[in-house]
């Protein structure tokens, strides 16, 4: 359910240190909070300079975002960030400047404090959103081709409904029962993630493909949809790691020690963005969200998704190894 690319990404609460007392995520009408956990999350990324000359490089570090169900801030970053910036979809990230001699290696270390609320949707929203919201979040893109005839036929056959919640739910039920999980090292996009088997269709790939297919089909049905990316933790405390030189060789075993993740969200009037993480327990979780998620960003409008869904993005250097350690407790 996680993949190498979906790994990482995150958001920050700029110097929101002053907001510490208000760290607990806020509640929302129609939603019941099921758990609250505050994590200390430490990320370490090993970068190498493969060239024969000294390189001064900018490294882009995704940060845990602030959402209705998540509050976060950067405790420390080494080297310190040069600047915080925001991408087109509103995701905050840090830019770090480093210098590495020929063949040299260096570490980037970040520590975050993240409060996450698990929740459950208490009602089934029925109203459709305003036109501008629909226009913005149902567009076609490189990975979400809403003009794919097969997906159009499938979406209308399996999930067309009068109310957005009903359609989202039917779609999740259809999708979760057709996942043929396989860690994928390049993003297929929904066009290439749905395969026809003798009796039915299957979604082949990992969390990214499942999310791409769901978002595409939801958009085909007129439901505003996007992806969220970040980490899916296995518990309150643990460590996850990724060695780039062995990742491809590991294949599906990668998920035994790595929790990079991507999942869909749909927009309901009166509630807002609601998570649909079908791979967390392999259920049609429309509006059922565990506190083991840490959101590093969203893909909404970008045609080719976001490069910030990677752990750490250097320009000239290469990432050799990444790890996160986390420890959660009561807020």
């Amino acid at each position: 359910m996680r993949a190498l690319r979906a790994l990482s990404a995150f958001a920050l609460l700029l110097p929101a240190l002053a907001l510490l007392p208000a760290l607990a995520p806020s509640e929302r009408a129609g939603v019941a909070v099921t758990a609250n956990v505050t994590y200390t999350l430490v990320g370490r990324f090993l970068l190498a300079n493969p060239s024969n000359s000294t390189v001064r490089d900018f490294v882009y570090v995704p940060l845990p975002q602030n959402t209705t169900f998540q509050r976060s801030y950067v405790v420390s970053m080494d080297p310190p960030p040069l600047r915080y910036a925001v991408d087109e979809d509103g995701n905050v990230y840090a830019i770090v400047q480093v210098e590495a001699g020929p063949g040299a290696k260096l570490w980037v270390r970040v520590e975050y404090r993240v409060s996450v609320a698990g929740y459950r949707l208490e009602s089934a929203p029925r109203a459709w959103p305003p036109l501008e919201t629909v226009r913005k979040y149902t567009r076609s893109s490189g990975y979400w081709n809403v003009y794919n005839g097969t997906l159009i036929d499938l979406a209308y056959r399996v999930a067309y409904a009068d109310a957005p919640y009903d359609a989202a739910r039917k779609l999740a039920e259809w999708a979760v029962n057709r996942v043929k999980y396989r860690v994928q090292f390049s993003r297929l996009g929904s066009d290439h993630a749905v395969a026809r088997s003798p009796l039915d269709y299957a979604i082949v790939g990992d969390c990214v493909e499942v999310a791409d297919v769901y978002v595409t089909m939801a958009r085909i049905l007129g439901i505003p949809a996007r992806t969220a990316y970040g980490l899916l933790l296995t518990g309150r405390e643990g460590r996850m790691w990724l060695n780039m030189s062995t990742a491809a060789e590991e294949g599906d075993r990668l998920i035994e020690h790595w929790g990079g993740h991507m999942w869909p969200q749909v927009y309901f009037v009166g509630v807002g963005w609601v998570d649909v993480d079908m791979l967390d327990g392999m259920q049609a979780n429309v509006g059922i969200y565990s506190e083991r998620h840490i959101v590093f960003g969203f893909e909404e409008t970008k045609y080719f998704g976001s490069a910030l869904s990677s752990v750490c993005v250097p320009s000239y250097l290469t990432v050799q190894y990444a790890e996160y350690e986390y420890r959660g407790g009561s807020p």
Partner: protein
Amino acid sequence: MRQVAALIFCAVAFAALATAQPNYWVALNYRVTFLGDGSALVEALFHPFTTDGRSLFGDPEVERSMNSSVAGFANYTLLMFSDNPRLLKHTPFLYEKRLHETVVCDVANTGSLSEFKGAYVLSARVYLNTSSYVKPLNGSTFEVKVRDSFTSVDVRSWIDVIEFRFEGAKLVGYRWEPPFARGPAEVGSNYLLWVNFNEPQAPDFYVFTLEAPGFAYVGEPPEVNATISSAEYDGSQLRVVVANPGPAGGYAYVRVIYEGGEQARKVYLKPGESREVVFPSVQGASAVLEVYSGDSLLEKRSVDLAAAQRERFPVPLYPPLIALSLAAVAVAACYLLRRGRRAVEAAPRQEPGTV
């Protein structure tokens, strides 16, 4: 006259990310010329090189790899002018090898530009009146945003040098986003040149106010010719049937505006297909229904909700009513008939003098 244009895309080139392909980077220069008819001639100049700055121009393997990336580069080019390239009108892309062109790039990220001779050039004319990044202002005056689509796709990528020319289109004003990025390095009477040595100082958007005599805003063209077949209200839900009588399939937006709110749903309609859309919690005495496709308003109709409610069962209710009425008439007729017959039948039995 500047010979080289200039946009350099200093990113980890696409090819470098694909392990099956040769490992190289691509210097990418753009030249954008705004014309008087409201279109823009876009030229992308590529020059492949190794990580240590050695030119790979003419290398057969790299050339094959570059050729296979043309469609991707074309898409990036269109994404500079629209977030919906499918609906952006443009001439077919021309891909050629030009020996006389020069492409520049900061090869080693040292803050100085190196020149490469020769370029693979991808060019097309883009019709800005169909761009989702164009905002009409007044007659032939409009604002156009040119996005650094490379930064948009990959945050570590940027356009190092970009030249905008104004030939027939008059530059009224310009700005860039975000504001902390650097402005143009050169400002000429009919051109602007940006030189960005790193991503943080490169704008994400270049924004121009232009006056082009031939400009007429169109917006995103419609995909289907959809129409409203019926609308029925049951006191809370508004049921709308939208039909596509045309020969092409595509998306339409059905929108209802009512007292205190609006709702919209996007539906796909195949040729000849119709689909029912349900809007819950619609309130008030009346509502306005609209159908769009692309940016075009195809139909707008007022709906008297009170009347729609009264007429909500026109077909299912009348037959039972008629049947009931007929049955009642029949029963009454039978009753009267039987009473009459009884009266007639009873008469002979009447004994004279009785009653």
